[in-house]
């Protein structure tokens, strides 16, 4: 569903109509004066709809910062971020919060679930925050697809790490957000559980047409994506379409990791 085009005096250099998320000259610096660190240096990047994109780069390359800015969790120092046609940089805290609630899904590396809520309550949390009722059929589909049927009334501490991440994926998918951001979603998982979660994320793209953006430093995880955006020193350093693990490892090696 394309967003109405906002009126602006200077159109951005690139913002394809199909892009789910895009950054234009996105810059983020921390600190001031001599201590200033540039985490993102005028990054221009777009993420296609219904595609699974991985952001990769060595530690300190700015990949997490990029994701935080794209997801409206952090504010840019300069430049712009668009979610569809909405300019995030123009929004205030409350509008950003509502936007995250209604249009963005999150899967974090750890501490994804609220310990006081059971699995189902965690899954429904964003919808309840918005005061919306879940689509029952969709809820059943997602729960069945993620194999959570018999775990819905368990508290997070009663679930394994893999199960917890699957609950987090279900929570991210349920409101049918414009984009799901996954930040090192397999970082704390053993390889089998990790593969499961990555398969689910890729499945959501293939089967439901979900847009997924994932930050990872694991070449195997990146190989599940349709496209890899490489980041180094706060700049886009290249990209790979339909990557294999070896492609990613080679590309990272040329970046000097």
């Amino acid at each position, binding site marked *: 569903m394309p967003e109405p085009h906002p009126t602006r005096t200077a159109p951005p250099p690139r913002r394809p109509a199909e892009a789910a998320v895009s950054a234009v000259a996105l810059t983020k610096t921390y600190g001031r004066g001599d201590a200033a660190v540039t985490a993102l240096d005028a990054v221009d990047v777009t993420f296609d709809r219904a595609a699974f994109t991985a952001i990769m780069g060595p530690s300190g390359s700015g990949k997490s910062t990029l994701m*935080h800015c794209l*997801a409206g*969790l*952090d504010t840019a120092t300069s430049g712009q971020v668009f979610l569809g046609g909405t300019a995030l940089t123009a929004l205030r*805290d*409350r509008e950003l*919060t*509502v936007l*995250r*609630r*209604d249009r963005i899904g*999150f899967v*974090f590396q*750890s*501490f*994804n679930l*609220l*310990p*006081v*809520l059971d699995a189902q*309550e965690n899954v429904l*949390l*964003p919808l*309840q*925050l*918005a*005061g919306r009722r879940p689509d029952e059929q969709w809820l059943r589909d997602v729960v069945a697809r993620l194999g959570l049927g018999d775990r819905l009334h368990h*508290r*997070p*501490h009663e679930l394994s790490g893999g199960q917890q991440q699957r609950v987090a994926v279900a*929570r991210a998918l349920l409101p049918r957000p414009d984009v799901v951001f996954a*930040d090192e979603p397999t970082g*704390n998982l053993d390889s089998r559980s990790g593969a499961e979660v990555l398969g689910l994320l890729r499945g959501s793209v293939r089967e439901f047409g979900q847009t997924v953006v994932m930050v990872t430093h694991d070449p195997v995880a990146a190989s599940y994506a349709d496209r890899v955006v490489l980041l180094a020193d706060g700049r886009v350093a290249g990209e790979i379409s339909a990557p294999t693990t070896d492609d990613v490892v080679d590309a990272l090696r040329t970046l000097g990791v």
Partner: protein
Amino acid sequence: MLTTTLAQVRAHAGRVLASCLAIVIAVGFVVATLCLNASSRASVLDAVGAQYRGSAVVLSETGDRAEGAPDPLAAAATAVAALPGVRATALDRTTPVQLRLPGRSGSSFAVATGLADDPGLRWQRVSAGRLPTGPDEIAVSERTGAGVGTVVTLTPEDLGEVDAVPPAPREVRVVGVVDLRGDPRAGVTGQVFASDADLTTWGAATADLLRVAAAPGADVAALRDAVTAAVPAAEVLTGDEAAAQAAAAFTGDAANLTSVLLVFGAVAVLVAALVIANTFAVLVAQRTRELALLRCVGATSGQVARSVLAEAAVVGVLASAAGVGAGVGLAAAVSALVSRTTSPIPLGAVVVPASAVAVGLVLGTAVTVLAALAPARGATRVAPLAALRPVQPPPVRSRAGALRLALGLVVLVPSAVALVVLSRAGMLTAAVGAGALSFLGVLLLARRLVPAAVSVAGLLVRPLGGVPARLAQGNALRNPRRTAATATALLIGVTLTSAMVVGAASTRATATQALVAGYPTDVVVEGADAVPTDVQGRIAAVPGVAGTSPVTTGEVSGPRETTAGAQGVEASAAGVVRSQQRSPLPRDGEAVLSVSAADTFGVADGGTLPLTGSAGTQELRVRVAPDSEQFLVLTAADLRRLDGAAAVTVVWVRLADAGDRAQERAVDAVTDVVTDSLPSSSVSGVVAERSSYDQLLRTFLLVVTGLLGVAVVIALLGVGNTLALSVVERRQESGLLRALGLTRGQLRAQLAWEALLVAGVAAVLGVVLGSGYGLAGTAAVLSAEAPVVLALPWAQLAGIVAVAAGAGVLASVLPARRAARTSPVAAIAG
């Protein structure tokens, strides 16, 4: 380890601030109480003991003296004056006098005291003028109202001595005003001081005291022994002993007040201990990784425990010191305030006894360290490995203390049953014991009871509060021990406050009923002669009068040749009296007799009483009212048939149920009507008595609520503190929620709901418990005095719940602001 400990205190100063405040308030309260007590004692000693200033030894008479015997002290004076080491002696004579000031119609009572001849034995300090030097000169205390230069009429009281000439009034001149400030006796009666010669003239034949001044360098103890040997018949004390003894007689009340205040202080200290224990438990939980790291680098579990205790000790000492300062300041403020008003307990300059300072410091530090014992023990259980594991969300459920549950039930059930039984039996001391024991049981059970109640309350508020309320319920229950401890602190204060409120309401209801039963008529107008019908009509027309009923009085004679006055009541009386419990109204053909009337006539309940009057004879059924104070009551119709001369001489008046003020105005209006038309009649009513009783209870309640407020404030600090610490602990969670779309407002609402759940549950439980204790206490205290009426002041109890819950929500404001400031990214980053 000490450097690590001090670093901890510095690093977490903010986190222990609430504990510090709790200690400062509790210690301040206790220290202020002790200082005020000491100040009051010092003021009394200074003022009451003033007359012994300069006296080394004081002799007073012991035992009764045979009539006509010579004054033993006068004789002793001569003997004592000859003893070595005695510089001077003074005989203190006192006699009652009447003073009439110019321009006043009445005279007032005063006590005249003779002045010592020796200047060293003259303790009186003048605030104006000088002391009398010649005859018919007097100095007065301020209470007399006379100023310097006034000439007053002084009449020595007739002491009723046989053959004594009635004393004549004499004109005396006021030459000075004696400063008696601080002396509790000064406010009661006026004091007059005159020369010893004048006192003798005014009829003071004997002396009350013989005061002895020592020669320079003489040993007081030796002098006392010498005097004792010389005058064995008298009681001999040193001046200091006599001053202390006199002061003690007047500080008894103050000592009572002090022990009551210290009970409230103990409650405040207990509540503070709970808050501190909770704070340290949370701090240890939050510091698990730090403590584990210390264990990894070689600290023993003992060293870890000691570091927690040392931290508590540092906090305790600092906070106690601040508390002592606050207490002294409070005492100074109170005494400054009190000295400007008239108070039954005198307060001069604030005295800070070293013991109060020591008690404050030791108490505050000891309580803090004791409260930190359990958390310190918990710290020893931190395994070194915990440092290596990733941060885990805190356990949602802690292990249930089966022992605690069993112990709580074993303590609570029998003591609660005992409380009900004992209070119904009116056994106060035993009931208080049972009540205290049952409260201990409640506190032991609180860890189970509070989470269960929070869970239920959470279900109730979820429809109102949506997701934030749901999260609040979950958060309040994730650490039941912490929630229970926080709520318990508040529970104590609220329970005691509501017990007092319910007790006061029940006492009031009981007293009102007893007053109504004893004085069933609001106002009684009693004429010397008949009250004319038009006056009755005017009384009935007074605004605020709800109804009147005329009472006929007459004279009848009955068996055993007894003639007695009888009252005849109309049917309308039933609507005018408020109670027929003690004095029932008769029906036609019936006579209501008091027990003494039944004895006099020789009749029993159910029998017949033949009565004869000027108009005829009649036989009436006897009804004996055991508690009645009315001799003989018939219906007015029966009385008129017996006594032709019977007339309405009494009117019973019932007032409308307006406030005390309105009723007092109505009584005044009735009095005006009656004195206007029947000058020799009297008006009496119990309205004033009822309202003074109410006033007393209201004042008592206000004071007690204020004192318990200290404990409630400390507990609310605890609520805020626990929330603040939880906010720190849940930083990541708050971040996650913010990322998922919880607005800042919803995050603040979540904490407000959490505070509301904890404080509300504590308040409701406290009010329920307190009502029970209040009712039981009233029953135990009053059942011996009167039939107890139990009353629950619903509005006040609802007010307590509302204030406690509202203040709890207020306590969440600062932690909530802090939580809302957390950026989502910072939280996810951990």
